[in-house]
């Protein structure tokens, strides 16, 4: 016998997106309704395995009757809602968000999808002034151990790392935002070095970082050496060997050597997360 209670089915809600009528379960977000309709929508602070932090505003859409644009990642659908995802107002707003972020942060190592969207919207960050004049930019990467590098020149304060370290996955709370205004930054307690902090080196913060601000030491060193070649890397999914839970590992292999390990967010065992052994315990398999 194998009866599984799945509870009451969610009733469907009908709304209009870009002129088309759409039915999705009650409680869905506008973002998930858009994706169901095949409408591609940019995101930065949103991830499938995190609670929406609601801070980047790059996923905004226009909702009829709403004074301001709404973040599609966290706004729930309502019956009769009329949504526009590609209006002039939406395009302008998304472009501005990217321009403001890229005017103060290095975006050259952001996820490929982020760079594609920036190109799509014709982003020109130089309109906002010279990046090197902005005080928050110029920082040296924090290289404090053999596993992590924190390169805050690339941090857009999307909070994903804080969430992955905290309530959404790891529950370690080693990092949080500190400071205000232009001084706001992600920090360990009292800004101690990472090995002295509460960090347990699960690497889940690196796993969710969209801009390359948090990076594995292997990748950082290879980029410095000029040997990092993402196009030549092959990704193979296997199962971690360090306990009986069965987390899936995506091994990124370049030149017959593992250079990075990630976890598939859509697999039910680990939901995109790992522990220190799964994330970093592969050195014995490379030479």
């Amino acid at each position, binding site marked *: *016998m*194998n*009866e*599984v*209670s799945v509870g009451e089915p969610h009733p469907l809600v009908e709304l209009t997106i870009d002129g088309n009528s759409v039915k999705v379960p009650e409680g869905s977000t506008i973002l998930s309704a858009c994706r169901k309709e095949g409408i591609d929508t940019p995101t930065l602070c949103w991830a499938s395995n995190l609670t929406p932090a609601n801070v980047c505003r790059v996923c905004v859409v226009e909702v009829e009757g709403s004074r301001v644009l709404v973040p599609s990642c966290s706004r729930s659908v309502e019956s009769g809602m009329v949504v526009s995802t590609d209006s002039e107002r939406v395009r302008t707003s998304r472009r501005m968000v990217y321009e403001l972020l890229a005017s103060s942060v290095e975006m050259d190592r952001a996820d490929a999808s982020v760079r594609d969207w920036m190109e799509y919207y014709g982003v020109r960050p130089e309109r906002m002034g010279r990046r090197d004049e902005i005080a928050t930019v110029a920082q040296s990467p924090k290289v*404090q*151990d*053999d*596993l992590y590098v924190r390169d805050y020149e690339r941090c857009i304060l999307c909070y994903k790392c804080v969430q992955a370290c905290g*309530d959404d*996955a*790891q*529950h370690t709370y080693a990092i949080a935002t500190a400071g205000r205004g232009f001084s706001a930054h992600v920090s360990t307690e009292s800004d101690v070095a*990472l*090995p002295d902090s509460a*960090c*347990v*080196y*699960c690497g889940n913060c690196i796993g969710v970082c969209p801009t390359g601000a948090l990076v594995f030491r292997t990748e950082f060193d290879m980029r410095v050496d000029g040997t990092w070649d993402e196009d030549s890397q*092959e990704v*193979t*999914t*296997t*199962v*971690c*060997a*360090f*306990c*009986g*839970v*069965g*987390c*899936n*590992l995506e*091994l990124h*292999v370049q030149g*017959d*050597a*593992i250079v990075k390990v990630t976890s598939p967010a859509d*697999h*039910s*065992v*680990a*939901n995109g*997360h*790992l*522990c*220190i*052994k*799964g994330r*970093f*315990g*592969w*050195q*014995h*398999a*490379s*030479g």
Partner: protein
Amino acid sequence: MWGSNARAAHPIFFHHLLKGVDAGARMWTVDPRRTTSARFADMWLGLNVGTDIALANGVGREIIHAGLVNTEFVENATEGYEGFAAHVEPWTLGRTAGVTGVPAEAIRDLAHGYASASTAQLIWTLGITEHHTAVDNVLALCNLALLTGHVGRWGSGLVPLRGQNNVQGGGDMGALPNKLPGFQDVADDDARTRLEGVWQATIPAEPGWHLTQMFEAMESDDLKAVWVIGENPADSEADANHAREMLGHLQHLVVQDVFMTRTAEMADVVLPAALGWVESDGTVTSSERRVQRTRAAVTPPGEARQEIDVIAEMAERMGAKWGRPTAEELWDELRSVSPMHGGMSWQRLEAEGGIQWPCPDEDHPGTPFLHGRLWKRPIDGRRAPFSCVDDHPPVDQLTDEFPLRLTTGRVLDSYNTGVQSGKFNSPIRSGDALELSTDDARSLGLVRGDRALVSSRRGSIEMTVAVDPDLPVGLAFTTFHFPEIADVNQLTSDAWDTSSGTSEFKAAAIRVEKLEVAPNA
């Protein structure tokens, strides 16, 4: 959670558990140590090492006396309740508290909370099974699930967490002395005959030896040659000095492994092997019975060969023509002999990201939990029996000569004897330290970083001292991940459970003496 520090040993399982805690689930941890897992619990029950059965019996009695027994379930799905109730009757809260060291109010809270919950799980690891009463410990926990009906239902159950990525799969494949693939018994004539037909070989109807019995057979000279595949018993066995002596005593030792382990160094022949999870195609089966694919991502170094090839070539030299089967061909053979794997085609394993057994046919979705049959009325199959079990203190007794209890366990960033986890530079690795409670360290005149001579009835080693304020007085803790710098299994007890063959790693008696360091050293 009973005898499990999943926060450190099964971190991603613990993520799932924390989702429940965040959503309002209550959690109790039962562990002699106040572990990192315990910090997330509503209550920590710090029992004396080896008193698990006493505590479980006390919890059982309290559930009965509070009228919290699931009588419908007990009447329809179990047997032996009356005998069990009489057996645990002497275990009043007061007596249980006295034996276990857990306050009566905490025992009561656990009993009432567990029994009253709409769904509840009992989760354990080696804190339950690495005792000379291993199987009785498990049965004692099963009793509680039977009393309350917390088994065989969605969200309720008994959850033993497996320590290795394929220890479940090894058993499933028949790598047990008394089992054929799919847990068919070697004594089952029908199953044996069917497999003999497929394998074209004779299968002995008598069970073989388990690991502990093998070491006994080495001692009595009944076992003369051993082929060790992917295990490092020279470091991992309790009472390691004795284990090494036995391995050295063999006429012939073959070791097949990915590294030159201490066991491999003792071998007559070493067969270098490809690393299973990253250099080989195959399957592993996780704690939740989920069969998943491993895939080769990099090439094995040097002369290392696929394990399948090593075994097939060995067979060839012995005169059997097995050819060189692929992982998929071997899997299909397993499906043909093990009914519970029958529906798991290679294609389905690929497409579905893993399937939980039993999965008898290709239309079967797999099985997220077991024992649902207990909820059919009338019950489907035999009733689940209560077990009357008694607590027996650890074999290695505390005396004036050996006054401290040593228990061993895993830490977050390391794994077993360090063969695989020792190669990366972890910033949080603390190494070989012997952790002592604040009071014990003070009375021994020890502070963090001091060196100490640690002795049990079996051996003495030097260790560095650490002080853990979360340890109760009288309890010491260490890992076993660094045998090259702290050969901890020289200390551990090889008293073992006669049912499971598991040694009592969790309960050694030790003495700790400060080592004076010469001023100029």
